[in-house]
C-alpha cells in the first residue's frame, strides 16, 4: 500500500495534481461561511449548473481550453444573479432556479445533438461528478487552476475585513460608509471563480458540497469568524488530500471520495461540537 503510494507520488504529474487539488480545496473553503450566512448557497448551486451548461458548449465547440469560456460565463451570471437576488428576494430565487435548470437542460441537449464523442454518457458523468481521477486533468487546466487559486486566496486575504463587515451586518456597513455594493461584486466574482475551480476537482453537482461542508463543520466547533475560517481551510485541505490519496489507491472516483471524506469530517465535528457545547452548558 505504502509502496504503491510512494511510487505514485514520485511522478511529477501526480505531485502537480495533488498540489492543484489542495489549492482548489483551500480556496473553495474560504467563502463557505459567507455563502452559508448570506444565503448565497443557492447562488453557488445555480452557478454550478450554469457552468455545466458552459462546459457542454465548450465541449461541443471544441475549445482546446474550456476554462476560457466557462469562467467568463459563470462570472457574468454570478454578477447578474447577485444583483437580481438583492433587488427582489423571491423573484431572484425564481430567476436563479430558471437560469440554472435551463442552463443544465440546454447544455445536455446541445451535447446530445452535436457531440461527436463516442462516450456521451461518460462525458456527462465526468462534468457532473468530476473526472474519474484527478490525474487525467489536462496540463493547461492544471496551470490555470493553480494560478487562479492563488489569486483567490490573495484577494480573500486582502478583503477579509470587508467581507466580515458586509456579512455580519450589511446595513451597518452601508450606513457607516462601506461600499457594500462594490464588495458584493467582488464576492460574486470570487464565488464564480471558486465554483469553476471546484468543478474541475469534484464536478458540477458536487461542488457546493466542497464549498459548504468545511464551513459547516468548522462552525460546529469554533465561535469566531477568524477561527472558523482558518479551521474550514485546514479541514478542506486535509479532506481533499486524504480523498485524493484514497482515490488513487483504491481507484474510486476522486470527486465523490473527497466529498465523502468532507461528510465524515462534518460528522466528527458535529459530535465534537455537541460534546463541548454540552460541557459549556
Amino acid at each position: 500500500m505504502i509502496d504503491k503510494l510512494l511510487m505514485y507520488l514520485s511522478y511529477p504529474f501526480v505531485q502537480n495534481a495533488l498540489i492543484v487539488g489542495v489549492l482548489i480545496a483551500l480556496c473553495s473553503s474560504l467563502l463557505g461561511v459567507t455563502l452559508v450566512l448570506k444565503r448565497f448557497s443557492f447562488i453557488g448551486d445555480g452557478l454550478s449548473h450554469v457552468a455545466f451548461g458552459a462546459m457542454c458548449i465548450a465541449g461541443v465547440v471544441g475549445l482546446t481550453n474550456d476554462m476560457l469560456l466557462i469562467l467568463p460565463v459563470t462570472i457574468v451570471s454570478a454578477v447578474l444573479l447577485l444583483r437580481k437576488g438583492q433587488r427582489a428576494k423571491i423573484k431572484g430565487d425564481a430567476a436563479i432556479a430558471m437560469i440554472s435548470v435551463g442552463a443544465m437542460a440546454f447544455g445536455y441537449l446541445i451535447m446530445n445533438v452535436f457531440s461527436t464523442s463516442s462516450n456521451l454518457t461518460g462525458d456527462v458523468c465526468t462534468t457532473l461528478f468530476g473526472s474519474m481521477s484527478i490525474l487525467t486533468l489536462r496540463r493547461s487546466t492544471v496551470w490555470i487552476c493553480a494560478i487562479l487559486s492563488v489569486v483567490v486566496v490573495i484577494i480573500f486575504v486582502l478583503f477579509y475585513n470587508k467581507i466580515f463587515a458586509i456579512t455580519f451586518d450589511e446595513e451597518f456597513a452601508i450606513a457607516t460608509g462601506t461600499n457594500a455594493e462594490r464588495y458584493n461584486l467582488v464576492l460574486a466574482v470570487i464565488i464564480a471563480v471558486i465554483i469553476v475551480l471546484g468543478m474541475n476537482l469534484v464536478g458540477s453537482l458536487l461542488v457546493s458540497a466542497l464549498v459548504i461542508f468545511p464551513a459547516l463543520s468548522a462552525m460546529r466547533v469554533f465561535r469566531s469568524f477568524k477561527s472558523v475560517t482558518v479551521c474550514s481551510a485546514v479541514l478542506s485541505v486535509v479532506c481533499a488530500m486524504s480523498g485524493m490519496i484514497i482515490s488513487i489507491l483504491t481507484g474510486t472516483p476522486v470527486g465523490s471520495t473527497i466529498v465523502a471524506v468532507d461528510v465524515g469530517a462534518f460528522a466528527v465535528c458535529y459530535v465534537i461540537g455537541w460534546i463541548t457545547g454540552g460541557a459549556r452548558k
Partner: protein
Amino acid sequence: MALLTVKDLTLGYDSREIVSDLHFSVNAGDYLCIIGENGSGKTTLMRTLLHLQSPMAGQILAGDGLKLNEIGYLPQQTIVQKDFPASVSEIVLSGCQGRCGLRPFYGKEEKKLAKENMVRMGVSNLAGRCYRELSGGQQQRVLLARALCATRKVLLLDEPVSGLDPKVTADMYELISKLNREGITIIMISHDISAAMRYATHILHIGDSVFFGTRDEYLRSDAGRIFLSQKEGGENT
C-alpha cells in the same frame, strides 16, 4: 450650514405614506431626541437619514462636509443569524471599517480605538466570547461599542437603552451626554421621555402632529403638553 437639513421629507414604504412634510435641521453639537408612538415612523426616518432607504419625496442635505464614514449607528434590531460565528472583538473592530476606506487591514490606531470603546462600554471582559451567546443587554453594549468606533461626528441611536438594566441605562445616558459634550452630534430615538427632557437640546416629535424645536419650546407647545401628560397618566396607572 447645518450638519443635516431635512426639507419636505415624506417617508413611507411602497407608496404608502407614513410621515409627510418633515422639516428640521441638526447643527453640529446638537442633541436631538426623536419621540413618538410605536409605529409612527421613527426608525423609518433614521434609516432614511442613513440612506438605507430612499425618501418618497423631499431632500436630506448634508452640510459641513459630513461624510457617511463619520457616522455611527446603533440599529433598533440587528437580525444576526442564529449560527453566525463572530467574537465580540471582531464585531467591535468591524465598526472601524468605514475609516479604512480601501486599506485592507486594521492598523494600530483602529485596534486601540476598538479596545477603548470596549472598556468604555464595559464589554472588554467579553472580548473573546461569541456574540450570539450573549444576553440581550450585553449584545446592545457590544453594538454601541461598534457604533462608537464608527463615528467622528454624528451618532444615530435607535432606542439605545432598550433591554438594559437601570444602572447601565443611567451610565449609557451619561456616556452619550459626555460624547455630546465632546462635540459629537447625537440623534437618538427614545421612548424614555424623562431622559429626553433631561439631556436633549432639541426634540422632534412625530405622529399625528409633528413638532420640531428646542426642548423648552416643546415643553410649552400643545403637542408636548399633551404627550407629556399622556405619558405621566400612563405611568401612574
